[in-house]
Each structure stands twice: as structure tokens, then as C-alpha cells.
């Protein structure tokens, strides 16, 4: 099949998008919320440069939390703090505290490798390994010693990422033969194959066409039953469609240069219809950003 035909097939088999009404969704949220991340006065710095600061928020279990804001506001930097991905940058250091299920994420003796096993991440550009579809999903379970019932685990992950039906007959084919949208769903399958507690998505649809984007958004509604989801997006409509809670970040110009700040964090419906901060209002009404 040519990529063109592939895409057409994808279109045809795509389930209908559920109508997402922000106001309606509010009722369906659980009344008691369990905090997964408690972010206390966090600032993320690269060397002497502060990328984002004054972040105070609580991220709740089985809820989709969106981080929005103009480019350069530090939302991607912040999401990378949540699984210690920033540790890969030598000059990075974090002020403040991130409590993950009662444990200080940056406390003594916390191993970033273990943190990342429990907090999965999907990146902006699909980055499947140059291996088969099967091995992409199987790689992490294998190295982490989850080799029992591997086939079942992989099927479950691929089903979880709504990819199984499209790839079940070609699991031994290269992952690079998939379309962009399929690759991104494969990356999601790869992340959930090791059963993380949280799924971080850093602009997961920004490199995808609208149809692939739709299927990723659709998927997030399914995934939040099992996972806590944090998504960075520059697309406000996307945040409105998928997120229960939304955090708006903006840029502040201070003495030490520009840095991102958390402006407002609230239920998505509230943030989009009745924002408390003028800057949020300007952004969501399209007057800025």
C-alpha cells in the first residue's frame, strides 16, 4: 500500500469523533480528586537562565491536564521536569518541589531512570525506533524484565493506543513504514506497554495532519480511564477538546530576561469561559499569542 492509500484507509476506519462539550464534561468529573503531582513553587533553570518559574499546581489522577501558552512560555520545559527528562541537560537545575504521590521527585536517592519508568512520555515528533512494530513496543518491557506474557502485553498496549487493528498483520514490519499518525500512536503504545502511572504528552499532535490529530485526541479520552495525562499543546482548541484542567503559561520579562510563568490553572471550562486573569482572557480570546 502506498502511504496515500494508507491514509485513506485510516480515514475510513476512524471512529466518529465524540462531540466534546466543555461545559457538559464538567459534571462527569469525580468530586474527590487524588493528587498525583503536587508542584510547589517550581522554577526550572538552565544555567543562569530561568525558563519557567512560579509554578504552583496540583495534577489530579485520571484527569487530562493541558498546559497551554505562547511559544517560549516554558510549558515544554515544565512538562519535562515532571519525569526528570531535563536531567539530561547538564546545566539544568530545579528550584522548588515536585511531590509525586507523596515522594519528592527531586529528593535524595531518587533515580531518574526509575522516575521515567513510572512516568511515560510521548514527544512532539513521533520517534519510533528503527525496529519492527513489535520490537518497538517490546523493547522497554524486555529490558525492564517484564518478559512474561510479552505477546499479550504488546497486544494490550497496541489496543490501548487504538493501533492494534491497523498493525496486527504486520507486527514484524518496520515501524518506519507507518504513517505519522500511526507512528505517534505506536509511541503511545510503547509508553503504556510498561504500565506507567502517568502519561506526559509534549505537543503529541503538532507534527500530524488533522485526521491523525483527531485520532490522538480521541485516544486521550480513552486513556484517561487508566492513566493520569498531562498534555502540552499550543493549540487552544485542542486543550478545550481534550482537557479537564488547563494551566495557562505566559511570558514575563524581568530583569534577568524573559521567563515563563504559570498565570492561571483551573477547570478547562472555567479557564476558557470565565478566566480570572486578564492575560488568560487575552490569550484564549485570540487577542494575543
Amino acid at each position, binding site marked *: 500500500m502506498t502511504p496515500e492509500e494508507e491514509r485513506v484507509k485510516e480515514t475510513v476506519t476512524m471512529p466518529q469523533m465524540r462531540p466534546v462539550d466543555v461545559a457538559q464534561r464538567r459534571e462527569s468529573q469525580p468530586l474527590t480528586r487524588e493528587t498525583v503531582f503536587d508542584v510547589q513553587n517550581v522554577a526550572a533553570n538552565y544555567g543562569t537562565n530561568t525558563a519557567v518559574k512560579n509554578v504552583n499546581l496540583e495534577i489530579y489522577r485520571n484527569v487530562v491536564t493541558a498546559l497551554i501558552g505562547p511559544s517560549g512560555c516554558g510549558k515544554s520545559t515544565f512538562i519535562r521536569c515532571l519525569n526528570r*527528562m531535563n536531567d539530561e541537560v547538564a546545566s539544568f537545575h530545579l528550584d522548588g518541589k515536585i511531590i509525586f504521590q507523596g515522594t519528592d521527585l527531586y529528593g535524595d536517592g531518587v533515580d531518574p*531512570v526509575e522516575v*521515567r*519508568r513510572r512516568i511515560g512520555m510521548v514527544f512532539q*515528533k513521533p*520517534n519510533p525506533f*528503527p525496529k519492527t512494530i513489535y520490537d518497538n513496543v517490546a*523493547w*522497554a518491557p524486555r529490558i525492564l524484565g517484564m518478559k512474561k506474557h510479552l505477546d499479550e502485553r504488546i497486544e494490550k498496549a497496541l489496543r490501548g493506543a487504538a493501533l492494534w487493528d491497523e498493525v496486527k498483520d504486520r507486527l514484524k514490519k518496520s515501524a518506519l513504514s507507518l504513517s505519522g499518525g500511526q507512528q505517534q500512536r505506536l509511541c503511545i503504545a*510503547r509508553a503504556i506497554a510498561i504500565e506507567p502511572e502517568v502519561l506526559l504528552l509534549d505537543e503529541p499532535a503538532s507534527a500530524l495532519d488533522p485526521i491523525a490529530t483527531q485520532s490522538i485526541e480521541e485516544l486521550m479520552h480513552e486513556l484517561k480511564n487508566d492513566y493520569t495525562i498531562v498534555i502540552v499543546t499550543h493549540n487552544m482548541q485542542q486543550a478545550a477538546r481534550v482537557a479537564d484542567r488547563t494551566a495557562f503559561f505566559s511570558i514575563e520579562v524581568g530583569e534577568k530576561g524573559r521567563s515563563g510563568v504559570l498565570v492561571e490553572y483551573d477547570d478547562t471550562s472555567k479557564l476558557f469561559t470565565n478566566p480570572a486573569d486578564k492575560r488568560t482572557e487575552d490569550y484564549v480570546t485570540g487577542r494575543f499569542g
Partner: protein
Amino acid sequence: MAAIEAPLNLRGNKRLRRRQLVNRLAELIATLAALAAIAVLVAVIWAVAKRGASELSWSFLTEDLPIFGLPGGGIAPLLVGSAIIVGIATAIALPIGVLTALFLSEFSPRRVAPAIQLALDLMNGLPSVIIGIFVFGLLVDGHTQSGYAGGFALSIVMMPLIARSTQEVLRLVPSAQREGALALGASRWRTVLGIVLPSAFGGILTGTVLAIARAAGETAPLLFTTSIFANQISTDPRHALPNIPVQIFIWSESPDPEDHARAWASALVLMLFVLVTSLIARALYVRSRRKMTR
């Protein structure tokens, strides 16, 4: 407004024509330089092939070295010896070279890397005669010449080449792949082993083959370490092993014109080996690159 202007002159004035001339001249000189490079290669191949081809035969490749003053004989011991020495060199240089490159591109702190990089570059530029003397002083002086010593000397030639080419191909592995692996809770080393190295495999192979081609022809390091050998096939690297470059040197110094012919023929064999391996390396490189950037 509607004034009639003189027709536009697009033919250029004198200055433009002079600039064009300079341009042509520069192009011509550059082209000639490129042609000269090819001409030198063709001339070398032609000269060696013309003088060496007549001596080349199956028995030349399969027989023991000739006994001094007698006709006939072959270079089988040289081929076997050279293969063993280069094999030893590869066994030493490949892991060290690849690990050095991995250290540089995956693990090293930002401040350390340039120093090691520089060391590698200097090592690459080290005159091979100095490597020969160094290994002579280290392993041969006070002991005996040996295939091991020769292999070790050649490994010093090969190591920076392998490290360099490995480094280059590691740079081609997208960092998104490393991030993807790390985000799954893989350690750095696991990421390197499972994701980075498999992608870089083709490139590492290419670098190794190129280094082998280069090392196979190195003479000076072997002159000091494995140049006094028997004229039969020997495979014990604890003793000096016959090898092609040193024997070419010995024969070319000989007063016997028969030996000169043998030197040319051996040179032809060596040259063909180097050409073929280089071409293989090139093909491997193109293939692995295509695979990675797909």
C-alpha cells in the same frame, strides 16, 4: 512618466566581462586540480599493475616465499601473516575505538570531550615510524619480535580512525531516539546498547573496514616489530609473522631483479586489497546512511 528609456543593456560592460573571465579561470584551475588527483591515482594503479601483473599467478599467491637466489616461490606466508596481524590489530582497536567514540558522544562531560577529541586527532597524525619505535621499545626490545607486537602497533594506527568514523555515525543517530529510550526508563548504557549502536552498526563497520585497508599497508610499524621471519606459512603470533608491506620493502632493496618483480606483484596484491576494501566500505556507508535517514 512616459519618457522613452534607452533599451536595457543586459550584455554587461567591460568590468563584468573581466569578472566572468576570472570566474572561468578559477573554475578551470579547480577542475584541473581535481583531474590531477584522479590522474595520480590512475598513474599509481597503472604503474603497479603494469609491472606486477606479469608475475601474478595462482602459484605466486599460494606458494611459500622463495629461497634466496632461486626462481619461483610465492607470497602465501605474507598473506596469512598480514591477515593475522591485521586481525589482532582489529581485535584491539575496534572495541577501544568504538568505546572511545561512545564515551565522547554519549557520556563525556562537555569539557572533557574536546581534549580527547584533540588527542585522537593527534594520534591520527602520528607518523607511523614513531608508532613503530614506540612499540619496539615497549614490546620488542629485550624480548623478541612478534605478531602481537605488530598487531598492537597497527592497532594504534587503526584506533583513531575507527573512533572518528564511529563518532561521525553516532552523531547521525537522531537524539529523539535516545530521548525516546530514556523516557521509557532505560539507563544510558541500555539506550546506547539497544538503540544507538544498532543504528550506528553500518557506519562502525565502514570505519573498521577503512581502518583495515589503511593498516594493511602500513610498513614502518611492522619493520620494527615483525620483520625477521621464516619463509613458510606461520600462524603463531608469539613469533614474528611474515607480512606483505615489510616483504615488499625487503624485496625492493634486493639486488636481484627477480625480487623487484616480486615486490611489484605483491604491491599489486596489496593495492587491489586496499582498493576493494575501500570500495566495500564506501558501499556499506551509503547503505547504512540510507537506512538511517529514511
